């Protein structure tokens, strides 16, 4: 009985000390690799969809073109996060309606940027270079845009992704040659909000005027 107890204890101890941590490490490594691969796939998928859009929307009118691009953006970009990140502490002061209007203004900004570069994008190649898990939630995906004719220098990109509330991986920020879109947008909105004592209406007016 005693030897059985001892044997059980040793087995148990072995299990907890060696096998369990090893299996946890293996499982988490596998999950991590899976997450990184998924993030890479998402970026590749979004870029190929954008390229297809560039060709298919050539004959469409402006409204339809914008609609297709905005649905693509809503699928891949976490607008809620971007809105929060670009308005800092002022986000809490905004009403529900103002938040929705700001998110819409942000979406229109991104749509316009994508529209401006869509035709150029379709002629360039995107090459994924590496991906990295940062902390508990963030994933970095690095890539490069190259011109097959070597007319333009390569552009380095860094995508930052995280899982949203629905469990889908979405883009939080994009750094183009070290310039973060969220940071530059935040600098601008915070200056306007600070100068106007956090009045979201002034900020929204400025966006509407620029349309």
């Amino acid at each position, binding site marked *: 009985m005693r030897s059985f107890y001892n044997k059980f204890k040793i087995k148990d101890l072995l299990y907890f000390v060696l096998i369990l941590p090893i299996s946890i490490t293996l499982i988490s490594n596998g999950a991590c690799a899976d997450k990184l691969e998924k993030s890479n796939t998402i970026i590749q998928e979004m870029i190929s969809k954008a390229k297809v859009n560039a060709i298919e929307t050539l004959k469409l009118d402006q409204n339809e073109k914008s609609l297709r691009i905005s649905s693509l953006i809503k699928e891949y970009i976490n607008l809620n996060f971007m809105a929060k990140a670009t308005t800092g502490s002022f986000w809490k002061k905004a009403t529900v309606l103002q938040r929705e209007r700001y998110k819409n203004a942000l979406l229109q900004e991104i749509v316009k940027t994508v529209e401006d570069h869509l035709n150029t994008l379709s002629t360039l190649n995107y090459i994924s270079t590496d991906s990295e898990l940062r902390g508990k939630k963030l994933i970095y995906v690095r890539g490069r845009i190259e011109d097959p004719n070597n007319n333009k220098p390569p552009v380095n990109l860094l995508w930052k992704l*995280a899982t949203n509330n629905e469990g889908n991986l979405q883009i939080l920020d994009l750094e183009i040659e070290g310039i973060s879109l969220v940071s530059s947008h935040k600098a*601008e909105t915070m200056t306007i909000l600070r100068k106007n004592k956090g009045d979201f209406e002034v900020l929204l007016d400025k966006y509407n005027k620029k349309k």
Partner: protein
Amino acid sequence: MMKNFKYILITLFLVSLSLGGCSGSKNVTKESDPFENLNRHVFGFNKYVDQKLVNPLSKAYVRNIPNGARKSISNHLDWMELPVTIANSTFQFDLENTILASAKFMLNGLTLGFYDLDNGETEILKKDFGSTLAKLNVPEGPFLVVPFLGPKMTRDFSGYFVDRQNMTKVSSTTVNDINLIEIPINVIDTRSKLSNAIDKLYNSPDPYTKMKSYYIQNRRKNVYNEKYHNIKNKNKDEEFEKLLQ
């Protein structure tokens, strides 16, 4: 002699301004802009000059000069800047960059830089005296918008004077005369390359702040080393994680 003395005085004044602007602080993530009002006025002036003169000229340049010729001009202008990179890479003890930049300068010198004989294969980091001062831990100082030159950190502006002064010292009078023609061509060439980005910037709700943010992020990316970028990314990750909660 008097001219050199003037340059030294300007440089010393600007370096002391940048030291004073950030005294006791090694934190480069804070953007100091004590001259914002003045900067906004100069930005307005530069925008006016750009819209009335530089932009129309750059459009005419793109319209009338074929792509191949524009690329050759661009290559030549890059080649002309290589001595600055060679000198500053040496000051920064970046041996690899010094050798690569020197080799490229000599190789492309066969075509006066108009044709890139290594097809852009060699990756050279552009270095100026501003980046050398950064290496010596001189703070970047307040943000400035300089008439005709555009955005500059005080430290980089003082570095610009040193680089120009060195260029004129090492080159002959003929080269200096060529420089007088090349500076405006460089401005037009750069404007034509950044045409979309600049037009989009003017259309943003606060063009000045956006320009400042773009400039500072880009400059820090080029000037600071891996350690700075790791700290910057770590801080940003923490900020993002908080927002995701």
